[in-house]
């Protein structure tokens, strides 16, 4: 919809036209969402596989900006099985976080909107489609059934409230009949669970009195407060040191076993993914380019982007003269090409790559890749 001059210049008139159009689209979507009494049948749905906690199905999340529509997530499908960890990797701006925010419905509104697709959430006896749920209903699920561990423990906590108060707020919202004493007991229990020794003391502290690792533990405790079935961890260790990172990863692994929930683990560190995840989803420019079990992805990476990503990361104990670097850069999200998004940076292009965006090809039951190199009659190319 963005009619742009070659240099990407927009005149005021064009910009106004775009924003008018955007307002029309977003206000319509917002109206749908803000309804107080939406019938349950509208968002009631059926899981494709009852063993999945979450199913993303052809999700499209767009941001309607004044410069044009940014297709942050453009047809993403993957499943999070119950009790498993799914790692999502990709460069910044590839739509990892937007995918998770779509599940939580925490997108920047009204610009950010889910325009197509389903996010099916398995509630045990029934399944809801988050993409169609009104905000009011979602409040009950958010923090209770699905919760999120944010990236920056420094900014995720409110500096003017005590740790105990912030944790109790979650409990209070979702357990209306809990008494004060019960809440305090549960909070202290949570703090102990995430490995805070001085839990009574920390209960009364302010966030600034804690170190980065401790704050991250508090954020994790907050996410676990209501025994969520699905935890989204958005780069939970990126802001931490390696030694603290090791502590936090150990903690998350232990907790997952204890409460048997599913984790969606977003990171750009392949090392962390290899350690934590059962399944890996590789995203590039708003689409899933490859997905499979951790062994499949790390031992037989198929998509050129995955291969490049792995080659560009130095590994301790493996000496290389020069690191591989993927040439070029990510295409402009407002103006995506109509062929494979990775084609301009790919060093393994075939003649067929000129065609439309490649479909998903199954290499095994779990291993899927979107690349023409693996299309039916093509013999499997060697790993570069």
């Amino acid at each position, binding site marked *: 919809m963005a009619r742009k001059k070659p240099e990407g210049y927009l005149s005021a008139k064009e910009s106004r036209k775009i924003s008018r159009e955007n307002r029309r689209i977003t206000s319509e979507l917002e109206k749908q969402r803000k309804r107080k009494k939406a019938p349950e049948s509208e968002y009631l749905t059926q899981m494709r596989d009852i063993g999945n906690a979450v199913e993303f199905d052809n999700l499209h999340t767009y941001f309607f900006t004044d410069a044009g529509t940014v297709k942050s997530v453009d047809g993403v499908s993957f499943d999070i099985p119950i009790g498993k960890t799914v790692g999502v990797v990709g460069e910044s701006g590839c739509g990892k976080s937007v995918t998770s925010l779509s599940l939580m419905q925490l997108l920047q509104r009204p610009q950010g909107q889910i325009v197509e697709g389903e996010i099916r959430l398995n509630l045990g006896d029934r399944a809801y489609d988050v993409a169609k749920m009104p905000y009011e209903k979602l409040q009950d699920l958010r923090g209770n059934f699905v919760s999120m561990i944010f990236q920056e423990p420094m900014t995720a906590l409110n500096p003017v409230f005590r740790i105990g108060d912030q944790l109790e707020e979650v409990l209070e919202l979702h357990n209306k009949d809990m008494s004060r004493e019960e809440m305090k007991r549960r909070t202290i229990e949570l703090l102990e669970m995430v490995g805070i020794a001085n839990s009574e003391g920390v209960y009364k502290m302010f966030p600034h009195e804690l170190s980065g690792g401790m704050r991250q533990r508090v954020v994790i405790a907050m996410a676990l407060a209501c025994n969520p079935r699905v935890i989204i961890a958005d780069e939970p260790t990126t802001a931490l040191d390696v*030694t603290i990172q090791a502590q936090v990863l150990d903690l998350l692994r232990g907790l997952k076993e204890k409460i048997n929930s599913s984790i969606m683990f977003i990171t750009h560190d392949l*090392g962390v993914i290899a350690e934590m995840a059962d399944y890996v989803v590789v995203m590039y420019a708003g689409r899933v380019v490859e997905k499979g079990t951790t062994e499949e992805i790390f031992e037989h990476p198929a998509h050129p982007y995955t291969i490049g990503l792995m080659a560009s990361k130095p590994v301790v104990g493996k000496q290389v003269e020069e690191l591989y670097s993927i040439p070029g850069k990510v295409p402009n999200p407002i103006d995506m090409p109509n062929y494979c998004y990775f084609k301009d940076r790919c060093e393994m292009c075939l003649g067929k790559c000129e065609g439309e965006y490649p479909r998903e090809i199954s290499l095994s039951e779990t291993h899927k890749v979107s690349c023409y190199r693996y299309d039916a009659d093509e013999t499997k190319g060697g790993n570069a």
Partner: protein
Amino acid sequence: MPKATEISNDYVPVTYDPQYILMVNALKKYFPIKGGMVSKTVGWVKAVDGVTFNLKRGTTMGLVGESGCGKTTTGRTILRLSGEKSGGQVLFNGQEVYDLSKKEMRSLRTKMQIIFQDPFSSLSPRLPVGEIIGEAVREHGLVSKAEYNDYLDTVMSDCGLQAFHKDRYPHEFSGGQRQRICIARALALNPEFVVCDEPVSALDVSIQAQIINLLKDLQRKRDLTYLFISHDLSVVEHISDTVGVMYLGNLVEYGAKEDIFRNPLHPYTKALFSAIPVPDPKAKMNRIVLEGTIPSPANPPSGCKFHTRCANCMQRCKEEAPVQREVEPGHYVVCHLYDK
């Protein structure tokens, strides 16, 4: 109230050895803690507390450690960027950096440069890129006016920037490109020694590789010496020749990269290396998880500063601070375990 302690300043001065471009001897940098009504100094934050190492010409030394251990302060103190040092020596080409007058220091600045951590905040948003890179060149009069433009073009193309980028502003560039601008700014002065303060930690993996390759490439071309500060151990292993491990203001272990990574000696180094995630799902983990967090540098533990978290702590560690000793040729460690 605790008394403001006088900084003890006992060290054996080193003599200049021409094979080393930089000799750092028992370097200390303390920051005062002000308190009370009249802003009296009530204590010191011992950010750098006796760091000793030598750096050979044309090599890269990696400096690793947790945040808050004094890596950056070490780099800045070597460059005389954070006021006066608190003790020790910094010999650059045999010249004590802190003995120079303001004028002499100014001319030395062209020889030693720094690349800052965050390419988003270290570039002035109001200057065009050409001015950011060229300002210091003009100020120092490195090239004549006639050659200025050509010189700038050469530097920029060396760093992977194009000539037409000169008139653009930093906000028009991506993170990787900005880091290239920072590198070009440092290298425009034709320095011998560059402190790289976490130059790639704010960048994506694929961009990281580009910048690391660029730094290595420039080192070969221009015979540069790097002090590479990073908390990413895999990057440090890739780029460095020697590696120093810091903990709470002390350099606990230092030696050739091969020695440090194949045979870490200090318990902290061992724990640090075992915490690196390996991108191989089948890799066995033999992790030494350090308990607790780094103590406050304002009130460090007595004796060996690491004894509160150390698995091999002995009675002696709590009382007596260990000294640096050479365990293998060129491999130094500060730990009582290796006392003979």
